[in-house]
Structures are given as C-alpha cells and as structure tokens.
C-alpha cells in the first residue's frame, strides 16, 4: 500500500510537467495582449512605446524559449510567477480564492452524497414503482436544469419572498459560521442538486447491476435479510462507480463553478479563471490549470484508495 502510494506520487511529477508544457505553449496561441487590455482598458491614448516598455517590464518581450525556461525554473521552486494583471504572486492570487471554492465543493459533495445514495438505493429497490419514477424525474430534472439558472431562481426567490439576499464577501467558517453558511449554502445547493442528480442515477444503475449478481441471488436463496444483503454485499460494490463520479465532480467543482460563482458573486477559483482568460493573464492561467490538474490527480488517488477500502478484492500493492 505504501509502495503504491509512493509510486503514484512519483507519477504526479511527469504528469504535471506534461500539463505545464502543454498549457504554456497552448495559451500563447491565444490572440490578445494583456498589456493592451490593461493600459487601453478605458480607451486611453497609450503610445506603442509605452506598451512595449510595459511588455519588457513583464518579460513578455523575451523569446519564447527564455520565457519557458524562466517558467520551468520557477516551477521547480514551486513559484508560479506573478500575475501579469495585478503583479501579485500567482500562488497568492489562487490561495485567496481556494477556501471559498473548496468549501462550496465540499458542501455540494455532502449535499450530493446525502441525497444521491439514499435516493439511488430506494429507486433501485423499488424499481418501476411510483417511487422509482419520482426519483428519476427528480434526477433528470437535476441534470436538465443548469446550476447557474437554479442559482438565479434561488436569488430571485429569496428576494421576492424574504426581500433578502446572501451577503457579498466570504467570512471563514470558524470566524462566523452563520455568516459563512448564509453565503455558501445557496451556491452549494444549486450545484449540489445537479451533482446529486448525476450520482443518484449512477447509484441506481450500479445497484441494479449488483442486485443481478450471483452472490446476491445466493444470499437471497439462503434467506439472508434484504437489509443485510444491501448493507454487506450490494451497497459497497455499487458504491465503486459512484465514488468515481463523486470524486471527479468534486475536482471539477474546485475550478468549474464559473457561472455559478458569477451569479452568486462568489470570489472563487472559477471566477478567477474567467477573469484571467478574459485579460490574457498567461501566468495566472498557467497556475490555475496546474492547480486544477493537481486537484484532479489527488482526488483520483483518493478515489483509488477508497476503491481498496470498499472492495477488498482490489489490492493496490
């Protein structure tokens, strides 16, 4: 197990180097110049000379191979460089946004797990009954309704019914739990619903699949209680694909809440990603892609470890 972990962690390095190289060159194909956007944003009469001077200051005038060398040397020192827009370190820019994005992703995952596992199980157990149909309608609606639209409906409903809106700005959970939850719960619900819908459908189909297995039939033939069959044999096996889905969705949520963050005015990683792309802030985009890739890699690793725990037949070593 330990050896497996070490091997997986070593594999992270070439993967991230590959991502870094790909993103470095790919984003430079993008048209647009961050300096022009910054200096001429409000229509200023900025000379070409000034634009070139600023490009030089930011190191954008250097040949591509030199920029790449600087970038890779920085990476080796865990330095993602400075944002071309704000001049602050990319590490700092991302670190500011992680807590809120992480919290919303965790809360959405909790909501999804709390909804999807019971509903998916019930739906499979009462297959083709009105209960199953209701759960399926709920799940399909969750897939069909975009999270940001649900978010807008939530905002409008809060305003119309209570003349109240969630506050703008993030307060850490440990500083003021009520203020924190009053801000984060709404985006968590709006993305958690879609997330739950995906997981519910996965849970239902996986459980139906497992329930058709020989060992379940054998257990039934031996007269084992359905509850026991479910708990000991069916659920753990059915959870394998659900854990994969939950893991991937979680990693996606860290940087993928682009529109939902805009709707709720959440200062998260997704919003930062959009801003960086709009402005052509190469360094920040590179840092964000690496951060999200790292999240995906580690979440996948955790999912793999969970596999071994859920299914003892899987031997990681």
């Amino acid at each position, binding site marked *: 197990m330990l050896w497996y972990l070490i091997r997986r962690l070593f594999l992270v390095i070439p993967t991230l180097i590959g991502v870094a190289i790909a993103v470095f060159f790919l984003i430079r194909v993008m*048209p*647009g*110049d*961050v300096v*022009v*956007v*910054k*200096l*001429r*944003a*409000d*229509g*200023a*009469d*900025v*000379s*070409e000379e*000034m634009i070139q*001077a*600023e490009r030089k*200051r930011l190191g954008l005038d250097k040949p591509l191979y030199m920029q790449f060398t600087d970038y890779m040397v920085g990476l080796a020192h865990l330095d993602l460089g400075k944002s071309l*827009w*704000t*001049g*602050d370190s990319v590490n700092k*820019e991302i670190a*500011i*946004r992680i807590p809120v994005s992480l919290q919303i992703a965790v809360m959405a995952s909790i909501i999804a797990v709390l909804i999807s596992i019971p509903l998916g199980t019930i739906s499979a157990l009462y297959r083709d009954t009105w209960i199953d149909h209701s759960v399926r309608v709920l799940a399909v609606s969750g897939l069909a309704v975009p999270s940001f639209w649900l978010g807008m409906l939530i*905002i409008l409903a809060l*305003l119309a019914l209570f*003349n*109240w*809106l969630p*506050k*703008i*700005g*993030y307060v850490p959970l440990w500083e003021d739990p009520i203020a924190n939850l009053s801000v984060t719960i709404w985006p968590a619900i709006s993305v958690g619903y879609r997330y739950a819908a995906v997981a519910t459908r996965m849970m239902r189909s996986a459980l139906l699949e497992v329930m058709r297995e020989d060992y379940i039939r054998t257990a039934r033939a031996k007269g084992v209680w359905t509850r026991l069959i479910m708990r000991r044999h069916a659920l753990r096996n059915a959870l394998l694909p659900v854990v994969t889905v939950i893991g991937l969705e979680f990693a996606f949520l860290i940087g993928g809440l682009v529109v939902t963050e*805009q709707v709720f*005015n959440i*200062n998260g990683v997704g*919003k*930062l990603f959009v801003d960086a792309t*709009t*402005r*052509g802030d190469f360094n920040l985009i590179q840092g964000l892609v690496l951060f999200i890739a790292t999240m995906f890699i580690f979440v996948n690793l955790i999912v793999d470890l969970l596999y071994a725990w859920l299914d003892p037949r899987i031997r990681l070593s």
Partner: protein
Amino acid sequence: MLRTVLRTVIASTAALLVGAGIAGAQTPKKGGTLNFGVVAEPPNYDCHGSTTFALVHPIAPHYSLLVKFDGKEYPKVIPDLAESWTVSPDRMTYTFKIRTGVKFHDGSPLTSEDIKATYDRIINPPQGVVSIRKAYYADLVVEAPDPTTVVFKLKNPMAGVLEALASPFNCVYSAAKLKENPRYPETQIMGSGPFAFVQHVKGSTWEGKRFDGYFRKGQPYLDGYKIFFVKSGGVVPGILGGQFDAEFRGRNPSEKAQLLEKMKDKLTVHEGTWVNNLMLVFNTTRKPFDDVKVRQALSMAIDRWGGSDALSKISILKFVGGVMRPGYSMSLPEAELVKLPGYSKNINKSREEAKKILEQAGLKDLKFKLLNRNIPEPYTPAGVYSIDQWRRIGVTVEHEQLETKLYQERVAKGDFDVAVEFQADFMDDPTAQFSKFLTKKLSPSGYSGHTDTKIDEMYTKQRQTMDVAERTKIVREMERYALTQAYNVPILWWQRIIMYNKKIKGWYMTPSHYLWQDLSTVWLDQ
C-alpha cells in the same frame, strides 16, 4: 432634441440645486459607513498608470489632488491641496500656494516637494513606472521653490492647464517614499485624502476609514466606506437586498425602472449627460472607406434623432451630439449640427441622398463587417441599430462582436472595416475629446488610419490657444471639419443615471464618472 438635452440638463441642474439646497439646509451628520458597489476591480493601486474608474472609485477617497473639479459646479476647478493660485499675464506660469499643516496618513507632512515629485513621476516616469498621461503633461515643468509653493511653467502655450491638473488620476504621493521606491503606489496606499486605507480583499471588498488628520476640518463625515466588487448584473439585487446603497458609475433605464418599482420613495435618482459616447470608426486604409462620400453616406443613413428616442429607453445611449458633449460650452449648437452630414432631422431625405452617393460610387450592394465588443451595454444596441439603419439604404453589414482583448488587437492592427469605438474621459476638454479623431502620427488611438494633417494642425492650434472664445471658435471649426470628413462619427452620447438610497447626502453628480469620488462631503442621514 436640443430641447430634450436642455430640459434634461436644466432638470438635472435643478435637481442638483434642490438637492444641494436641502443638503445645505441640513447639517451633515457624522458617522456611519457608506456601502457601495463597483462593477470592476483595479489591477493595482497606481493612479498615474491607470485610466479606469475601477481605480478611481475605491482609491480617490485615500488621496488628495492639487486642484479638483467641483462636483456642484462642474467644470469649475476648485482648490484641494492648493490653497490658491495665480496665473502670469502671459499664462505661461501657474503658481500654487499649498496648504500648510497637511499630513499624509502616516503622519508625515505634505509639502510642495511631494507635489513636485508626483508631477515629475507623471511627466518623466522612472524606468518601470507606467505613466499613461505622460504626453498630456509633456509641456509642463514643475518647480518647488519653497515648501508651500509649486510652480508649473509651460514650455509651450497650453490651454486647459487647470483642468488637466484636476485629473482624478493625479494622486499626490509622498516624495520620500517615491525616493525609496518609485513603484510603491502600485502596491501600497498612502495618501493624504479624507479616508485611510483599511483593507482590500481581492475580488471581494475594499474598506477605508476616516482619517482624523484630514486637512479640511470637520470632514469627512463618514466613519468609513466599504466597496463591494460585483458584476454589473449584481448591482440592482445588491441595492434591493440592502447589501449596499449605491453605485456611482451609472446604470441603465431598465435598472432604473426596477429599482424605482421596488424602492419608490427610498431612492434618489440623478440623470444627465455623460462625457462618453460611442462612435463609428471607418478604416480609411480600406476601400471604399477611403472615400469621404462613402463615409458621409454611411453616416447619413443613421437616424440619430429617432435613435435617441428609441435607444434611450433600452440603453444608456441617448444624446445626439458631435465630437464635444451636447450641452458643453464648446460644442456645436444644434442649429449648426443639423447642417452636417448625418445630423439632418429629415432622415428620409438624408437616406435618399446616401443611396444616390453609393450608387454613384458603384456601391449599390455594399457589404462590410462591423467590428464591435461583445459587451451588451451599450455596444450591442449601438451595433444592431447601426446595421439596421444601413440596411435601409441597401447596405448589408455583418456584426462581428469580439471579447475586448480580441477587439482591441484587431482595432490596433487596423484589421477591420468599420468599428464601434468609445470615447470617455474625465473632462470635456477638446484636447482629450479629439484624441481619436487625429492621425496616428499624433495620437496612438487614431484608429481610422487617415493621414489628414489638417485636423492635427487645428488640434495643435486649439491646444495652444489660451483665449477661451478664440479656442471655442477653433474647436467648433475643427468639429465641423471632423464630422464632414467623417473618419469617425459619433453615434450617440450616453446618459448617466445614478441611483442611491435616500439616506446618502452630499454626493453630487457630474457628467463624468471619474469625478467627485473622494467622498469627503458625503454623509448618511440616519
């Protein structure tokens, strides 16, 4: 239309005067925090390297200026750090007496040396410092003969010196700190304005607190202010939900209707002209836009007067005007404007003439692309409206809307047929307003690519003419010429609509969203 403009200006002025009267009658109350929204965030904190309101709104309360525009009587220039000033008879030397006892937020005294260091940084920025308006002040030499005197000497005659010095971007920095690090203003806030800096939570909020050592005794009235950085669509919900009480850039008519419906008597509304317009830029390096007749025909097809009524209901586009803001003292009077191509009130006759011109030029089925930003307000309505107007004379136009950075790249490279461009500045001065109408040789934003030096000559002449009446004459002549040559033609000027909770007092609306934002006179009636 002039009547409409005048009515609005008079109504706004009356509202301002009444407001001012009421505010004047009421004794300002001390205390409270002003919460307001700002729909963009500054990249850094350096005023000299910025052109955006996203910097002015959070930062102006932290800094003082040498002189500033009067919010109540725009475009009057009033003292800020300067106590008074004198102008030499030849108008080549401006001598400012600086207030004594002014302190920076760190307690250090502010003297003429700080003002000199500030303007030296703007005019001759050290390596690595971005000074956007360097060229604008290139004719100035600054001296500080004693701690309370600053002298600005002109190398060449320059009109509008006081107005130029009243730029909200000319924040006065500490000479001592600049000596240590000329780039400190990018990352630190240390001014002498009414509010000291508390914190900036990136992407979220900005806070300032009252500076007790502010040089205007008794001011500011507020304990502090807090800014919420929100997307444009978050302003109305933010005000309705009580998260904040104002937004000072400007909202559109539909947002006004939404807020009025819900807040009715709790809302103060100001409306007036805005020193911003949208214009069409014809790429004169491409055929057929090198032909003045074609450019005139395309301008003549646009019903600006009808568009004003229609577009002002759905967007911030409203006022018909030339290069100078309608209602401004130097702008062309309406009677003269209507004689110019594209400004006639008889749109049917105008379009017939436009059709004839295109036919004569062999361009009956003219097709081209209109390059525009993909920003819904007001760019999309302006683009759609122009295309519809051209359709009526048989011209087919494809609307190409790009995100700003792509748009800017294409325009700067001259890779477009016709583009929708904007003009915005903190003041009406013609030196600022004509910058996009010039040749590329004189102005980097002369995107039309024309090489007509006559307009450059008139521009330089007006810039150097100190007599206001004489300058007005030249400016009007230049405006007539620019609109006739039609390298760029304004579509419509913007309307500025500001709404805030009635409890906010002492804020005055000017035609520019860059001005009167130091919040020193603002107080809360609660």
